[in-house]
């Protein structure tokens, strides 16, 4: 039988309340400063490096994001590390926090469905992350304009913008994961530890472990299968997916993210950039994978939340 009324009743109210909570919270301020300072360092490093090395690159502006100068990693590498941290920081106590403050049953006794609460919290946190990322993105571009003195081309801007969207999708994955943990674990500390553990595992350990796992199942003699399996396994980590998306979008010379067969190289001019749309097509499976991962994780949290007892 169908439920009466809309599942989204009260959604806007929850989103606004959560947004104002996030923007006013100390936690958010600390995370923002962390991101801004580290990213600025990386961009500064990149700019000095770019000035020294590449003079005639048609995509000079995109180098801002990807160039690293020892000992600092590149802006993109920083983001792939810090975005999960921000997302987890915003999501790990979304639901269990309401439980522990004993506000959950009071809020749910208002004429709204649980859907509105969970979805509202997700949207609010994602909007918060997007706002910070957009601000950061504008900051980097502004710095680039001032310090490089070269205006970016239309395609560069388009690529940089797509990169921003992908970063937001990447943040969505970690946010959905953190919210799932906040539903499953009654203690906020447990939820935070579990998500941080998973994050470390998926970002640091898994890329190193994937080849070893492949070796256990596929013989290295069959090179193509071996490579493909290794890559498939590595792609279970959202960080790998994000890294590949960024590579395809920000480095226009990237023609493929997998192994290349000789037949595919026929007629190709090595080192020439791909048109924007082709680059998007190269990264398309990864982009879809990121979005799908956030949806699956959110649905998991949603189902668990619907079945959960509200009593403290």
């Amino acid at each position, binding site marked *: 039988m169908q439920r009466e009324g809309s599942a989204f009743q009260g959604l806007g109210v929850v989103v606004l309340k959560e947004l104002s909570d996030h923007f006013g919270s100390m936690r958010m301020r600390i995370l923002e400063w962390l991101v801004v300072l580290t990213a600025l360092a990386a961009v500064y490093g990149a700019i000095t490096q770019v000035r020294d090395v590449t003079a005639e690159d048609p995509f000079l502006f995109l180098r801002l994001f990807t160039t690293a100068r020892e000992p600092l990693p590149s802006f993109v590498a920083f983001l792939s590390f810090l975005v999960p941290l921000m997302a987890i920081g915003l999501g790990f106590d979304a639901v269990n926090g309401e439980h522990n403050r004993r506000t959950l049953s*009071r809020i749910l006794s208002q*004429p709204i469905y649980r859907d509105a609460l969970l979805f509202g919290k997700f949207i609010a946190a994602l909007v918060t992350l997007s706002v910070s990322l957009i601000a950061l993105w504008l900051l980097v571009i502004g710095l680039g304009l001032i310090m490089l003195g070269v205006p970016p081309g239309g395609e560069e801007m388009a690529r940089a913008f797509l990169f921003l969207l992908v970063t937001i999708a990447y943040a969505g994955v970690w946010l959905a994961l953190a919210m799932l943990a906040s539903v499953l674990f009654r203690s906020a500390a447990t939820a935070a530890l579990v998500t941080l553990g998973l994050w470390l595992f998926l970002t640091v350990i898994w890329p190193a472990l994937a080849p070893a796992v492949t070796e256990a199942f596929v013989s290295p003699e069959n090179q193509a299968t071996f490579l493909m399996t290794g890559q498939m396994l590595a792609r279970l980590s959202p960080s790998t997916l994000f890294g590949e998306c960024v590579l395809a979008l920000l480095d226009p010379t990237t023609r493929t993210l997998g192994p290349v067969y000789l037949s595919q190289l026929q007629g190709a001019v090595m080192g020439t950039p791909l048109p924007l749309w082709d680059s998007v097509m190269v990264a398309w499976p990864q982009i879809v994978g990121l979005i799908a991962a956030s949806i699956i994780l959110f649905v998991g949290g949603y189902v668990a939340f619907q079945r959960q007892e509200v009593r403290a």
Partner: protein
Amino acid sequence: MSEARETVIEAKGLTKRYDTATAVDSVNFSVAAGEIFGLLGPNGAGKTTTILMLLGLSDISAGTARVFGHDPMREPLAVKRRVGYLPDLVGFYDQLSAADNLHYTARLMGMSLGERKRRIPEALARVGLADVAGKKVGAFSRGMRQRLGLAEIVMKDARVAILDEPTNGLDPQASLELLDLIRALKAQGVSILLSSHLLDRVQTVCDRVALFNAGKIALMGTVEELGRQVLGGGYTVEVEASGGNGVRERLAALPGVRSVEQPAPGRWRLTCDRDLRAEAAAEAVAAGARLNQLSLDQPSLETIYTRYFQKAQAEVRHAA
């Protein structure tokens, strides 16, 4: 009351099963408009589970519940629009002020800004929190939080209030104030369903009570009815007097007195069929004693409850 009372909450065979245990077992009761109905019993007897099922916050395993004729499983929004709920040890957002907390729930109810600006100060004034409306809830005492929870119900203009352990964790003064507020709600025509494990405190406000034990309703009715049912009826009159001769014999000879006990020198406790205070006083004076105190003991819920379960256990032992 002369007018025919409409039923606002009705539970028939209401049951909640978990994997291993039955938390609520075929519970039947109904709450009439304008009355205060108490669900009483020890912790873990199934009171909160029953309340959550009535609100549609917990699935019903078997049986039916109706709130204003709506099924909380199928039409939870219709139920939740009309019912105000004060959870056990209610929580608020500590970083927001009392008024802002109410603004948030009022917006969830879909109240317009104009309505909120009118109703929220009104509700806060009703529960005596008007002067701390702008203060952050983080600094509130337990009693203030409970009152803020009541203010939410007042603001909602709910026709039924469901209060789960409203006096839990309150000092005597705060819980008396809260019970006064509950009486005031009733005077406004709000029907109230409240749960508590503090029998005596709540006895004073309830029109009817249901005593829960292990997921079932053991006894239901007015406190007097329960007293008659369990204690075998009767009134207890206590007489304190000094001096005089043969007071005990004279009191025992009164028609309607079943027994006389003397718990302490100068004190007599009579068990009688009706209220015999006037007669007992006259006899004591006639015996030449100075009457110091005269009182009629209402049967206390606590006594009823303990006696009932003593009886029930004794019967089990007999059967075994």
